[in-house]
């Protein structure tokens, strides 16, 4: 960035965060999902002059170096701080989700918001109706720097084809960053949780038949069965009876697949909406 912009004015823009109304069920790959909790650790945030954030945003136009937990299931904006910078056109953005990558360390820095979410960037909870079965789930997803990615640069960046452009003036009244968890959930193959199966030679050691958990031996014989519903649980494919589907980084399949889908959706899929102007009361 050139050093010449003496004419620009310093601006502090009120920053709000918000979610979406998720009371309506979300159709997600043969599943109908009701989102009950969608907490996002948001921050830091940078708005850049160039069309490509990341390497080409050493000098940002605006920054917010704090973090906050966004209730993405609540459409009402909440003020979380101020975006500080100078007037001028912004064309791209980049942000972290509570876990900040550093140049000097391999491990990310856990910001307050992520600490509030027990070290995760996003926590999603809800119920998925799949083939007439209701599967409660809880996804805890850290969004952090991958091994091959560049250190010291926020993880989530706007796409070049995102139509993100704003000539920010000194009287800018606010910016609302609105997250919508529905697109993330839509990309999660939750239906894999209820795939019925039967014991077979060389097959999985646990299968579900309806809501019955069956333990299998190597020869494919059923060694035991359990009615999950009797214990108030659900039978999850490959897992068996469980109170809920725990979608976490160290989960086994098929939860690991769902985790990766959600992580990719959050990191590279649907972006939040940036709504300029102060939210109406």
């Amino acid at each position, binding site marked *: *960035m050139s050093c010449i912009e003496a004419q620009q004015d310093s601006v502090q823009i009120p920053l709000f965060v918000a979610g979406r109304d998720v009371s309506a069920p979300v159709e997600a790959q043969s599943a109908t999902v009701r989102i009950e909790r969608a907490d996002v650790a948001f921050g830091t945030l940078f708005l850049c*002059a*160039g069309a490509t954030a990341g390497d080409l945003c050493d000098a*940002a136009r605006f920054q917010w170096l704090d973090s906050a937990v966004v209730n993405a299931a609540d459409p009402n904006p909440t003020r979380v701080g101020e975006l500080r910078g100078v007037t001028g056109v912004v064309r791209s953005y980049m942000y972290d989700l509570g876990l900040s990558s550093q*140049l000097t360390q391999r491990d990310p820095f856990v910001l307050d918001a992520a600490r509030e979410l027990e070290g995760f960037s996003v926590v999603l909870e809800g119920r998925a109706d799949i083939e007439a079965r209701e599967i409660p789930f809880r996804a805890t997803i850290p969004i952090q720097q991958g091994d091959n990615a560049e250190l010291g640069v926020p993880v989530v960046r706007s796409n070049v084809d995102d139509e993100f452009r704003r000539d920010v003036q000194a009287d800018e009244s606010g910016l609302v960053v609105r997250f919508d968890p529905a697109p993330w959930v839509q990309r999660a193959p939750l239906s894999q949780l209820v795939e019925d199966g039967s014991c077979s030679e060389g097959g999985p050691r646990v299968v579900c038949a309806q809501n019955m958990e069956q333990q299998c031996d190597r020869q494919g014989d059923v060694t035991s069965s359990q009615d999950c519903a009797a214990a108030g649980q659900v039978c999850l494919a490959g897992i068996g009876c469980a109170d809920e589907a725990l979608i976490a980084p160290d989960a086994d399949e098929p939860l690991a697949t769902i985790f990766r889908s959600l992580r990719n959706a959050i990191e590279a899929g649907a972006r939040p909406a940036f709504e300029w102007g102060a939210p109406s009361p």
Partner: protein
Amino acid sequence: MAGTAACVCVAAYVDGGTPARAQPPESVPSETLTPPTAIESPPATYPPSALRERQESSVVLDVTIDAEGRVAEASVAQSGGEIFDTAAVQAVKAWKFTPARRGEEPVVSRIRVPFEFTLPSQTAVAGTSQNEASLETDPSSAGPQPTTTQADTAPAEDSTETETPSSATPSSATESSASDSEEEPMEVVVQGERTLRTEDRSVSDFRMERDIVAAAPRQEGAEVLRSAPGLYIGRAASPAVAHRYMLRGFDADHGQDIEFRVGGLPINMPSHIHGQGYADLSFLIGDVVSELRVAEGVHDPRQGDFAVAGSVYVDLGVEEERRGVALQSGYGSFNTYRQLIRWAPRGTQNESFGAAQYTRSDGFGENRSGQTASALFQHRFGSGALSYRAIGILHAARANQAGVVRQDDIDSGRVCFECVYPFPTAQAQNALSNRFMVGLFADYRPRDTRDDHSERGTHGRRGANGQLGLWLGYDDFRLQENFTGFTRISGTLDRVAGIGTGRGDLLEQQNRTLSAGITGRYRTAPYRPAWWLHGTVEVGIDGRVDGIEQQQNLLDAAVRNQTWDNIDDAGIRALDLGFWGDLDWNITRYVEARLGMRGNVLSYDINDRLFNRAPRTRPQDSFIRGFRRSALGFAFGPRASVEVKPLDWLSVLGAYGEGYRSPQARLLEDGEDAPFSKVRSVDFGVRFRASDLLTLTVGGYYTRLSDDIAFDAREGRPERIGATRRLGAVVHAVTRPFDWLVGSASLTVVDAELLEPPPPTAEEPDPPFERGQSLPFVPPVVIRTDLGVVHTLVRDLWGVPLSGRIGMGYSYLSRRPLPFAERAAPVSLLDASVALTWGVGVLSFELFNAIGSEYAAIEFNFPSDWDPADGVRPRTPARHIAAGAPRTWMLSLGVTL
């Protein structure tokens, strides 16, 4: 006063082979009397103010010569005015004679010495180097010439009738003086050399003579530049890095917009890694600066590369009253030692001297210790039409640097104003500078004769003059600097923490330049096609070749400066050939017009060894990195000025010129028509001269630059920002109301604007721009005052007079706009000194920044991360400062033998 262009230094000369003569008394002594013979006769000085006022005068001195040939007494027998009397007495006191003899015995004698101060002819004037300005001694014309018939017809050697006191006593000498008035005098003609070229070509030409330069105390020699209107210099880094310069609306960084010459040697270095036109004046020793000439704007064809805001010419020399061997030792704040040795043999020309200075200091605050050593020598030799001047500069400096700190960190108490960040990458900041330059200049100047007016209307060689100079320079520069903290990622190593990232942005810059140059010019004798018209023509060339090797790397200070990225590695061969022509014509006595043009060819051969570097993720077997290329360009522009003198005390001056700044070679493309920063400059104003009482200049100027550059902290060097313009006004006054008082004051007001958006980049594809956008770093108002008082306090203190000197210098820079809507605080600096001189000794006390201003020597706005462990990296620009020096004192004791 030696060596200034307009303040023509004239020579009083006694031909060593011509004995001074005295009239014999009526009673002829029984033994043969031999008159005294002058053997050393250093030049007298034509009073500068008289020269400016075009005053002529005659002074007759009675001079008593003791038995050892020294001038025991000199008194004014016939006054020509105080300033002329003083000049004559000062000159003759330095003369040495073979004493008069009665038989074989040396005796006291007394002679009468008339000095005649005559102005040069109207033709023309001084040059751009000091040797052209100081008028040379030529025994054939300026020497003592017998003026009476008797003297002409009676060879001195044959004179056996020298009137000499019969006894070698002062009283006898005094007694004999009555009859001397009727005796044949030895006449000394002090004549300004034919001025060959008009010095003041613009209202923005300023000359700071020695009394002004020496009035205020200076922490360093280069600070003499602060006396120039609108020119401010400050230390932003360390004594091993060039100052930062600002001149009438230009933030000239380390010299990119100002052409500097010292003793005729060019100081700017093209395509330097730390900044185009990098000009380090740290070698200057203020004690031997005789005059400062500042040509603000562009209007003189001799102004070459980097003359964008203007040109600064520093002339060196030691005036007669300070000549001898001087030793000075000083101690001051922060354990600062300064030692100076100056050698200026009496009886030689003011330009001849040698000086060496060593300074070491712990520096204020943290990490600012350093040492510097400089040696300057200059000698003029030869006589007659050809004389020569040799000059040499040696300089070495190494110093630690504190770099910059974030203002928000100062505000939060995380780091103090004069401190450095507690990381190895910050504490390893330092710089080294070594420089060597030598030059030899031959001046061709046939002596004009007083009956030269008979030559009017002819083309003659009389009055023609020329110069041929050769110079050689070597410069070695190495800098370790970290402005941004921890933001860099290696382009070469794996981007994992601890290997290719987060090792500190300690930028190493190395630059080695070997340069050689030539300069030559010839100005014709005056040509007078009509009674109302006369003038001269000058043609000249200058050229230089530079071999530059430069690198830029990232170092990890924590592991013995391990290199963790190569950023630049280039070799540049550059040639700059300039040529000019200049007409300087008088139209009646009221109008003087000059019209010139200058062209420069610049050629570059660049070996950019790291260009086309393969990305880290790609195999490197598809090509060999490097980008060799060449470019050539041509810059051309007119230079014109006119001066109208309706009254003796009033001049109205207007000037226009087009200049250029050469490109940073490493940024050129192959075959590119070497884009030049073209500058167009207009100056207009008036100058009032009321004798010595007051010289007042009021002027306005407009400067437009096609392609400006501004400092980029991340790259540690200037980058292109687009076209700019300056509109400003200057008021400058110099007053010498009394012999013991000199004062100078200037006010420069400027509005500096960006005219078009800066060039787009990937990071900033559409740079914000508003018409009327102020340029950063440029102070809209600059004020400077200098005041010097020298007075005899006690006429006789144990047989020796005691005199005192008080000096004061004040600089003010108004609030400066910074990038990104920030504004720098104003700077207000007062320096003061007091000194006592008793016999050969001088005791001085100097106080710098006397009011104790806490100010930033520089301020920048850029992103940095000086807290790598806090988890977040700030990316918006933040204000950074480098502390300016606090209140500092220096106590010095010196002797001159």
